[in-house]
C-alpha cells in the first residue's frame, strides 16, 4: 500500500528512535514507531485505526524522525500519504478537527487570492471551528504593528490558480 510513496515499512525494526526524537510523541495516540508496526502487520483493522488516528494530524512534519532513522525510512512522506488518504476516505480523527480546519481554510484562502489573506483565513477558520474568541486579542496587536493586511493581495493569474486546484482535486476524488 505504501509503494506509492516508496516507503518500505518492512525495513523498520522497531528501534523507536523516531518516537524518542519526535517533539509531539507525548501528545500522539500512537507514536510514529507504533504506527509503523500497525502498518507492518498488514492487518486492515489496524490500518483503519491508523487512518483514524490523531497522530497523523498532530505530526508537524518536522523531519526529525527521518533524520535519525537508522533505516532511512521516510516517515514524513508516509504521514503525508496517510493524511491525504484519511481525508479522502473521510476518516479524520474528530480530535483533529481544528487542525484539519486550519489546513482547509489555508488552502481555500489561497485558492481564491493566490496568496494568503490572513484575515480571510482567520474568519474561515473560526466559522469552521466556532472558536471565535481564541486569539481575538491578537488581531489588534498585529494590526498596530502593521502585520495584518486588511486588503488581500490578489495575483493576476487567479484562473490559473483555480485550474491548478481543480486538476489536483479531480485526481483525489477517485
Amino acid at each position, binding site marked *: 500500500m505504501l509503494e506509492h510513496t516508496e516507503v518500505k515499512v518492512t525495513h523498520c525494526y522497531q528501534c523507536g528512535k523516531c518516537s524518542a*526524537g519526535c517533539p509531539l510523541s507525548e501528545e500522539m495516540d500512537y507514536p510514529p514507531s507504533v504506527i509503523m508496526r500497525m502498518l507492518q502487520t498488514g492487518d486492515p483493522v489496524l490500518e483503519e485505526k491508523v487512518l483514524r488516528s490523531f497522530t497523523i494530524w498532530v505530526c508537524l512534519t518536522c523531519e526529525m524522525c527521518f533524520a535519525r532513522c537508522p533505516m532511512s525510512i521516510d516517515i514524513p512522506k508516509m504521514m503525508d500519504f496517510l493524511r491525504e488518504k484519511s481525508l479522502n476516505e473521510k476518516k479524520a480523527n474528530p480530535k483533529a478537527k481544528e487542525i484539519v480546519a486550519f489546513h482547509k481554510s489555508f488552502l481555500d484562502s489561497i485558492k481564491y487570492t493566490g496568496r494568503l489573506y490572513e484575515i480571510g483565513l482567520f474568519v474561515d477558520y473560526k466559522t469552521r471551528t466556532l472558536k471565535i474568541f481564541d486569539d481575538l486579542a491578537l488581531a489588534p496587536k498585529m494590526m498596530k504593528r502593521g502585520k495584518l493586511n486588511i486588503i488581500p493581495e490578489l495575483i493576476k493569474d487567479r484562473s490559473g490558480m483555480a485550474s491548478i486546484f481543480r486538476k489536483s482535486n479531480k485526481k483525489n476524488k477517485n
Partner: protein
Amino acid sequence: MSKIGVFVCHCGENISATVDCAKVAETAGNYDGVAFSVDYKYMCSDPGQNLIKSAIKEKGLTGVVVASCSPRMHEPTFRKACAEAGLNPFMCEMANLREHCSWVHEKCEATTEKAIDLVRILVEKVKYNHSLNEIKVPVTKTALVIGGGIAGIQASLDIANTGHKVILIERDPSIGGHMSQLSETFPTLDCSQCILTPRMVEVAQHPNITLYTYAELESLEGFIGNFKAKIRRKSKSIDEKLCTGCGQCTTKCPVKKIPSEFNEGLGKRTAIYVPFPQAVPNKPVIDRKNCTYYIKGKCKVCEIVCPTGAIRFDQEDQIMEVEIGAIVIATGFTIKQPDFFPEYGYGKYPDVITGLQFERLASASGPTLGEIRRPSDGKIPEKIVFLACAGSRDPAKGIPYCSKICCMYIAKHAMLYQHKVHGGKSYVFYMDIRAGGKQYEEFVRRAIEDDGVNYVRGRVSRIYEKNGKLIVNGVDTLLNAMPVEIEADMVVLATAGIANDGAEELAQKMHISYDPYKFFAEAHPKLKPVETNTAGIFLAGACQAPRDIPESVAMASGAAVKVAGLFSQDELTREPIIAVVNRQAPPVYSSCVGCFLCVSACPYQAIGKEEIKNRNGEVIKSIAKVNPGLCQGCGTCVAFCRTKSIDIQGYTHEEMYTEVMALLNEY
C-alpha cells in the same frame, strides 16, 4: 590410436531427470576413437570408480571422459581413480552435464542434444591431451603470525608447540591487544590480564617463537610454502639487548602529558614509555613525534639516567627479510569513536565514552585505579546509561552489520558498575539482546535479575548536556513508545566494531580479499572460515569479523592446525596446469622472439628470461622462461604472446581449438 572411455553419470536423478543418459552413452560409443561407453547411476561411488578402473585395465584406455558434475566437485576423485588404474590422471577430463546442462534446462530433446555435444567436444580434446606430472615444491617450515593479540598469541603457541618455528610480529610496542585493555571478561568475570599475561610470557619465552614488537609487514612475495616477507622493525630508539626494563627513563621523562593509547585517551603517558606495566617485552620505546629531543634537539634525560646506556637516539628502522611457509593474520579490530555520532554530541562531551574507555575506568590498573569516575570532573556517576547498537545495525550510518560482542559487554559493564557503585542506577537502551554463547544468556539475566540493571527496549534519539548532566532522550517501545528521558551522569556508547587501521593496505600487500567493510575475506563463509583465497595465508580472530575471545582463540587454533598440516609434508605438490614456453631443435631453439610482453603481463611475476648460449658461451638468443613454482596457470601470458610460443599445459592451443571445432562439427 586413441582409446577413450566415456562414463556418463546419472548423479542419482540430478542429471537423468532432464538428460537421457543412456542415449548420451550410446551416441558417444559410436564416435571414432571411443573404445568404451557406459552410463551408471553414481559414477563417484566405489562401484562407479571401479567401473572406470576396470575399463582402463581391460580395454587399455588411453583417455577417460567422465560426463557428470562439475570438475570442482569430483575432478580429484576421478583423476585419483585413473591414477590408481595406471592411467596418467591428466588424461581424464570431465564434461559438466550437471551444473552446465541438467540443472539449468528443462527436460526435452534439446537438453539431451546439448549433453551429447558436451561429451563430444571433450572426447575430441582428450585425444590431444598429454601426460603431465605434478610439480613438487619444498616447504619452508617457519610460520609468520601478524598481530600479537589473543588470537595471534594462541596461534603462535599452537604452531610452536607442534615443533615448528614461528615469527610473531606486532605493530604496538607490546603484545596483548585489546584483551589486555579489558578489566574482566564475560561470562565468567575473570580478570582479563590475569588470564592473558601468562600466555604473553609463554610467547616471549618459547624457544620456537621469535617475537618482534613495534614491527610491521613491509612487503610479501612468493607462494604457499615459499613466501619471502620483508619486515620493518621500527626503531624503538633503545638497544633491547642492553635495556633491563628498570623503568628509570619513563619515571624521569619530562614530557608527561601525552594521551595514553592504552588507556583510550583517558590517562597520560610519557614520551619514552611502556604501554602498560605487564607489557611484553617490558622495554620502552620512544615516541619520536612527541619527544623533545626529536622535536627540538634538547633534553636527553633518559640517556642520562639509563644505568646501562641503552638509549640510541639515532637508531634507524631495520628491514629484515625472512623466508616463511605460511602466514596467519591476526590483526584484530578497533571501534568507532564518539565523534562518529552527530546526535550524541559529535564527541564533544567528555562524559560520553566508548566501551573500551569504560573498561579502562573499571580496570584496577587504569587511570582511575578501578573506580568509575566521570572524565570531566572525576566525580562518581550516580546514574549511568548504556546505549547498545551505537553505530551497528545502522545502514544510515554505513554499518548494517551487528558487532556481536556489545550486548554481552554492556551487561558486563552494567554489572561491574552496580558492583562498584552501590546505590547507583544503571540503564541499558537496547533493541535486541544477542547472547548466544555458552552461559551468555544466564549472564545477561544475572545483570537484570540479580544486579538490578534497568533494561529499556528502545533507542536513544539524542543526548545533550545541561548543567553538567547528560540528558538522554530515549523511548520504551514495549510501553507504546513512551518517551523516557534520563538525566545521566555518564553515558557509555557500545560503538560498532570496525576493521583496524591499515587493514586495507595490509590486505593489498598480501594479495588477499576483503569485504566492503575492510574485514578480511574467508575462503568460504561456512566451511573454510580460517582460510583465505590465497593459499598459505590464514585468518584468526576479529580481523575477519567482530568476535569474542573464545571464538578468536578457537579460530587461532584452527588456523594453527592448518599451518601444522601444511608443514607436516616436506614437499607440496602443485597441479602442473602452468604455462610453458616451447623449445625446439636448433637453430630455432624456440619460436619465442624475446619480446617479453608476457613478463609484464604476468600478475604473479612468474616469467623471467633465459639465455640460450652456444658452445663458446655466446648468447644466441634470449627467450622467456616460466618459473613453475610461481606460475598460477591464469593464461594471461598466452593471450599476450604474439607468436603463440607460450602455452598452458592441460589447456593447450591445440586442445582448445579442437574443442571449439568439435562443437562446430568441423573436424
